[in-house]
């Protein structure tokens, strides 16, 4: 006995799909949306030397043993713009914006870290 003459989605199917899509979107907003950083903490050696708000675009120079490391903030993101170190790992790391993310220029002993209310990080916990 075939009860399937239907070849298209029924109204109820559309409803189920809409509800489930909304649920997925809500999960994305709740779990991904809120933890954007609000400050950038800059260390030189062992000491924190600057605490910059991510809301203001700027370029700052930080002195280290090898010279000046330049840090840039733009559109609530931060990066190491230039560094006198030989391998440029911290420069090539690119933009960071989430709380807990950091870029470390080891030879020049300068590091930047995004601060703010952070959610759990299952990788680093």
């Amino acid at each position, binding site marked *: 006995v*075939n009860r*399937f*003459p239907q070849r298209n989605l029924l*109204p*109820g199917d559309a*409803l*189920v799909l809409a509800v*489930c899509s909304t649920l997925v979107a809500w999960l994305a907003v709740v*779990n991904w949306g809120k933890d954007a950083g609000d400050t950038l903490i800059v260390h030189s050696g062992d000491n924190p030397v600057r605490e910059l708000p991510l809301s203001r675009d700027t370029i700052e120079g930080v002195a280290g043993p090898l010279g000046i490391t330049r840090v840039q903030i733009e559109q609530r993101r931060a990066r190491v713009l230039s560094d006198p170190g030989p391998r440029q790992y911290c420069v090539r790391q690119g933009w960071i914006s989430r709380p807990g993310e950091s870029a470390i220029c080891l030879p020049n002993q300068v590091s930047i870290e995004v601060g703010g209310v952070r959610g759990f990080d*299952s990788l680093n916990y």
Partner: protein
Amino acid sequence: MSNAHPQPDPSPNLGEESCGKEMIAPVTADDHRLARLAAIAIALSAVETALPSPLPGVKPGLANIVTLIVLYRFGLRDAAWVSGLRVVAGSLLTGSFLSPGFMLSASGACASLLALAAARYLPRTQFGPVSLSVIAAFAHMSGQLVVVRLWLIPHAGIAYLLPVLYGAALLFGTMNGLIAMRLMMRNAPHGPVT
């Protein structure tokens, strides 16, 4: 759907050729049908283990197409049998019986059957196989996640993956529902699946 369920054969084949007389439960035509359907489901899940998956727990779940069609054709009891046999025999096939992966598929299958048990009362004129498939996929993912959260990764960090996992459930649930619907259509290319 329950009235479409064929009654067990009143004079069952006692399975003399293979089982002998000490066999207590006779093998019925019903059993053969269930075994056939479960075999299809097992084959599909075996094929799936060969597919690369970006995340553990994200799989198309093609075997659920079989579960869905069995639910429509023969009712919840048979769907539960096919699903259970698929989980157990499928894990024996891949050597993962009682492993964490097996626990995940078992909990997912249980949750999905419970959801289907409730969802089959939705009015048929409004809710088709796509609805049931998506509901089952979400329940399957939830059942897995309960085990993951309580046992495998007892940490709130998995919340970060929820949108991806449920997005995959939505995508594959819809896909499987559409496939099941096509297969059950009266004018399917090779005739409806029975």
